[in-house]
């Protein structure tokens, strides 16, 4: 049996603000019946643009119902800017805490709130470039990143507890691990603003490709030469020279003096350019 606080039990047994607002200013539905959790949240603003009324309907366990009920109480009277600062932690804290395995219920509340405000403002619901990481529960990279950042999560298991991502087939565990690493690297960067963000290997390769295409190849081609990216091993960028460059005595100078310095300047200072052994 779950250890629920008295406040969770009380909100489950006597949920506040159940229902749907007619002609709401903002409304959102998150989760799905397949996932076992779904929340429909709607609000109405008063003349001062403060949330006058908030209502919910939930399909889910006791903590999902209590989290949604708590959310409607928390946001009442807030401006939308204030409401956007409400985190899943705030919902959990309002309830005196939730079992770790049930934290995803509070995340669902936060998501519904955010999406309902997006709905009011007419903003895009899905951020461009957002990618589904967990296919089983339809969780995106942005949702995982946010949960990791705001709750300082460090393990895949925690991410599953907070977002459900990774709780099904488990195929996305590596991707989740990569997001945790990326977010924690960014967090360190915020702590030491001088440091550059640590690039994931994939990101690094992409950036190198872009710089090669945009900056380097055109100017080499101008001289009748060319260059091709062969591999990236850690910080070593392996390339092959083509055309005039291949037979040019000065190609080493070109590689170090031009290619390497451009890559170091635009991507990361530790990069080393090497020619593919022939």
């Amino acid at each position: 049996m779950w250890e629920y606080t008295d406040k969770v039990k009380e909100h489950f047994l006597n949920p506040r603000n159940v229902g749907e607002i007619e002609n709401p200013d903002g409304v959102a539905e998150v989760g799905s019946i397949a996932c076992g959790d779904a929340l429909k949240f709607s609000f109405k603003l008063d003349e001062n643009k403060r949330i006058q009324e908030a209502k919910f309907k939930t399909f889910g366990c006791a903590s999902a119902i209590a989290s949604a009920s708590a959310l409607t109480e928390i946001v009442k009277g807030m401006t939308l800017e204030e409401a956007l600062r409400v985190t899943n932690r705030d919902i959990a804290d309002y309830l005196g805490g939730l079992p770790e395995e049930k934290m995803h219920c509070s995340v669902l509340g936060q998501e519904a709130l955010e999406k309902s405000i997006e709905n009011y403002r007419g903003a895009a619901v899905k951020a461009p470039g957002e990618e589904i990481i967990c296919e089983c529960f339809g969780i995106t990279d942005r949702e995982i990143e946010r949960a990791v950042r705001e709750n300082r999560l460090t393990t895949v298991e925690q991410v599953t507890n907070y977002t459900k991502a990774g709780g099904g087939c488990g195929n996305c565990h590596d991707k989740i691990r990569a997001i945790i690493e990326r977010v924690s690297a960014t967090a360190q960067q915020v702590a030491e603003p001088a440091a550059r963000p640590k690039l994931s290997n994939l990101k690094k390769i992409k950036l190198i490709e872009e710089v090669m295409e945009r900056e380097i190849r055109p100017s080499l081609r101008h001289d009748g030469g060319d260059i091709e990216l062969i591999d990236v091993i850690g910080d070593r960028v392996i390339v092959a020279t083509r055309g005039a460059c291949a037979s040019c005595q000065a190609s080493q100078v070109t590689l170090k003096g031009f290619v390497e310095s451009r890559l170091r300047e635009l991507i990361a200072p530790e990069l080393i350019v090497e020619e593919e052994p022939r």
Partner: protein
Amino acid sequence: MNTVYLDNNATTRVAPEVMEALVPYLGEYYGNPSSMHSFGGQVSRKVREAREQVAALLNAEPDEIIFTSCGTESDSTAVLSSLKVSPGKRHIVTSRVEHPAIKALCERLGKEGYSVTEVPVDSEGNLDMDEYGKGLTPDTALVSVMWANNETGVIFPVEQAAAMAKKKGILFHTDAVQTVGKIPVNMKESVIDMLSLSGHKLHAPKGIGVLYVRKGTPFYPFLIGGHQEKGRRGGTENAPSIIGLGKACELAGQNMETENTRVRDLRDKLENGLLKAIPFCRVNGNRGARLPNTTNISFEFVEGEGILLLLDQFGICASSGSACTSGSLQPSHVLRAMGVPFTMAHGSIRFSLSVYTTEEEIDVVIEKLPPIIERLRDLSPYWGQHRACAV
């Protein structure tokens, strides 16, 4: 508030007669059954008697009874022993709906290089016997298929399955933890090689189980130690619990008819009462081939944990196959294997009765549950949508 206990597939109350039989062996008769002195010898005699009582319920020989610590130990012993005595064979056949005691073990063995065939079930939870037959190969060391499912109560044709395995020289084990005491088991007319049972599912205490091993079946012990259980399971006998289990088996034999008449009628009353009072619900599992004490009902558009907690307000104990109660994020693997839609699986509740269940208790549930479902449906975003569609 009186407890209405309808979760007997999880565990059962210890029968008063069982308590009475075992308590003296926790107290004054504390001797070790293996001792040479008569103080231990009197305990040894009671253990022998208990072994006979267990054997009588299964219509087996006392020598075929090995006492263990629980159903899970019995299952592990049977599976690992079978692999040990079948060198060279690397294949296991089981079902998709096994209890974790078998399922998790087979998954582990799968990672260790064994190949595992999980035979599917149909939408009513019946074992697919065609697929089962195809699964038996020359490389198969063992079949382990449960006799009756703990969540739905659906009974598998284990005798037929065992006969098919025997024809191919494959060892056959069945997890009968939910079966023994509820429907007759007759090992003298069976070809099943090994069978697991658990004391606390039939009104004996927790911490005692049995592995039945047919005489002549090759066997390799799991717990290595003393000469107890004729060297087949080391460790000082849990004498009080063994004595309690003996008594519980004797009672189960006496109660078998009640179980299949009065208990079955109460279960049917509960099931029909709920189906009549609550729209959009259905029974999971083949109603024609089920344990007499079990019903598994899905209530669409609501989630099981909420139902259980609201039932708990009235002292009613049941369990659910929903994700929130399963300790994982997915609903019950049994219901998923049956292809029960998510909308139904999350809202499934299992009621399991016993000979101690009264008609008053059933009436309480029939009275209290419909408003609970209605209340949760009023909270559910899908309920409104559904009604809008129906209009």
